[in-house]
């Protein structure tokens, strides 16, 4: 993995890519509680997603995304990491 990774472009920092962060277990549960959903009812992100790989998100994690919003200035979104 190491060899390939270093060669690969890190997508973070690109103007189109918002900030991603893996939530801790507690934070993840809090999100599920707040929205009263099961993990699969969240938007998904594949574990093979370039950003997911860059931040080391594993299937089962919940990723928090800080979007620069066109309407609200900033907006938070969450994605559940799935195999793929």
């Amino acid at each position, binding site marked *: 993995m190491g060899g390939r990774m270093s060669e690969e472009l890190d997508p973070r920092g690109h103007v189109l890519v918002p900030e991603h962060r893996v939530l801790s277990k507690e934070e993840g549960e809090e999100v599920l509680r707040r929205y009263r959903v099961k993990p699969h009812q*969240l*938007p998904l992100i594949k574990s093979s997603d370039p950003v997911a790989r860059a931040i080391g998100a594993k299937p089962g994690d919940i990723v928090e995304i800080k979007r620069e919003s066109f309407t609200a200035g900033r907006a938070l979104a969450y994605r559940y990491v799935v195999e793929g």
Partner: protein
Amino acid sequence: MRPQRVIESIRFSLLSPDEIRKMSVTSVVTADTYDEDGFPIERGLMDRRLGVVEPGLTCRTCGGGPKDCPGHFGHIELARPVIHVNYVETIFELLQSTCRKCGRILLKEEERERLLQEMEGKEEWWKVSEKAVQTAKGRQECPHCGEEQEEVKFEKPFTFMEGKGRLTPSDIRTRLERIRTEDLRLLGLDPSVRPEWMVLQVLLVPPVTVRPSITLETGVRSEDDLTHKLVDIIRINQRLAENMEAGAPHLIVEDLWELLQYHVATYFSNEISGVPPARHRSGRVLRTLGQRLKGKEGRFRGNLSGKRVDFSARAVISPDPCLKFDEVGVPEYVARVLTVRSRVTSFNLEEMRELVRRGTEQYPGAQWVISPDGKRYDLRYADREELAQKLEPGYVVERNLRDGDIVLFNRQPSLHRMSIMAHRVRVMPGHTFRLNLCVCPLYNADFDGDEMNLHVPQSEEAQVEAMILMAVQNQIISPRFGGPIIGGIQDHITGAYLLTRKETLLDREKACQLLMQAGVEPVLPEPAVVREGVEYWTGKQLFSVLLPKDLNLTYRAKICEGCSRCKEEECEKEAYVVIENGELKRGVIDAHAYKALDKCELWDRMVKEYGVERASEFLNHVTRLSIAAAEMLGFTTSIDDEDIPRIAKERIEEKIEDAKKKVRELIEAYNREELEPLPGRSLRETLEMRIMEALAEVRDRAGQVAEKHLTLSNPAVIMARTGARGSMLNLTQMAACVGQQSVRGERLNRGYVGRVLIHFKSEDLGAEARGFVSSSYKDGLKPLEFFFHAAGGREGLVDTAVRTAQSGYMQRRLINALQDLHVEYDGTVRDDRGVIVQFLYGEDGADPMRTDNGKAVRVDRLVEKIIGGGAK
């Protein structure tokens, strides 16, 4: 009335032969339908136990008439099993991926375990099955019993071969029977489904109600396509059975079996590739089960997703500027037929009695009376006086439509929600629906023969919902961009312009006349001018009567020419509009004031700050005032509005000559290869681009020359410049020069080799040879120009047609993909499964319709209002 029970869910599965027999009320054995007397034959396809369609008969299973008997299924016992065509591909996969001996899936135990585990808890478990089947398919030897596998081949449409031998449906059935239930999921089947049911032993016969026969005027009975097909099946089935019994040669039995397979297959679907479609005696292709479901007119899209309704009307529309914009004019003869359910209460008892007395004969009357016990009285036949007396609270009267009723009005294509809105009824003479012109852009309606539909909501709940959610006033702001979509159009703009420009002065009589026509109290302010003892009012003063007294607004009108230095309030063209405390001080009213889908500064403010009620009132008045003004002041346009002086004509011709010369020079430069190519373009492309550029420029130049003589004293120019209708380009094309014609964004170039028409030399690249029209519409086109113009015009027509189809399909897909999304109470957007699509709608939770052109909170306005100036 609410249904007693609600369907909660529907499960899809296969029917087992046992289930079919259990569902069936009779087995069908005779191919004949009716006897000589026209009575249905028992155990035939029209057996009365299968339900009834003709009135007067009763069903022998449930005893109901055609209205209440839903019909009952029968069945046919097939002499030999046949394959269900729609499942041949599944059967093929099953044969390939299971053992020919033990019936187990051709997967090693550990593969099986792994895949089963992967499947566990997955909503779309069949995606894993696809993998399992793929792995199992190629395996040569059964991992369970060690049996060597032979290759199974499938020959379209329904023949299976294994090695050299043929697999008959019976063989297949036995093979499928061996498949174990625990393997089913891996094979993509639900455990409740047995694969052998895909080979039919018993055929379900649908009730007569599904395939009603029709009696033609001549008395000849014509059967449904399905019945025809079933007759075929029974015939062959019978022959097959007889031959088998008689011990006929193998070959004959096989042939009949194959024939049975064909009939049963085409019964399910008549569009199988490799199978000649079954035909009617006339040669018409039969429409069997599959075809009934499919497509736009099929069961799903045609009957289930869209239904025919009662309480509706359709008529040609015509305009009526005197209606309020939320009204619809309904012809009396339509109102006589449409009814509204009115509950009798102690408050309206007498009124309802009167309506019942008038009955169906006089216009505001009633059609039906429904007593509290649910009995319906038809007022055409009932003793109306007696019924009227009997009326008491609790009765329901279906009275005729009348003024003030709420109806839904719709024009297809219904592209957005404003295509169906709630209007208030105005019953009037005539034969067309009438509507105010302000709502035309919403329906995209004109009056060249357009028709519209009208629906009458019946329950109070429906009426109230329609009024609150769908009323025209509540659609002024478009949810698409948060700005007004209803507003003045065409003459509303011209009229207002004529009224509010400074030369308009009106004496008392005229001023009062205008205000009365606008529908307001003619309370005049102080006259602006008193000349020779006569009082005069300006149009601006009259317009101001309609404005709220605390309105302050400054903006640039549509007619503003964007001078390099704006003189603002000193603008002599009156393009700088100032409204102070509800008084139009300066500037004219035009498209930028209140035209629908334009900037509409004034109107936008009215709606957003004074509310829908006040704004609607304003619009109703201002449109009538404008039209009255246009009528009073006089407004007309004709062909000589496009006249320009001879000198101008000559100048234009000069310019055109110059341009043609320039084109010739370009071509020469090109021929000498001296043309400097644009980066990334070939020489030829560069030439074309430069020529197009030059010719586009000359049209603009010619336009400019013409425009000097087209001033605001010209009615056609007034329309174009105020934004009421048409553009300056339209006018200059009429007055000066039509310009280059194009097809596919290029100059015309197709036709003969190197030339468009024979009148030119080959490879002539000049302006005239490639579709430059130097004449004006008014002067008339030369024959060749006319031809080029037609070519360009044709492209436009084709374009429109193609675009309508394409965008229609795009919209259908968008709607289908997004229709289940809704906002939840926590502000999230979810689909029907509860999957979150957005965590807060639009990321700020704002409804576009309640925003100011997309901005949820106008901070600047609020600050300015509370703290005052300088917020800009």
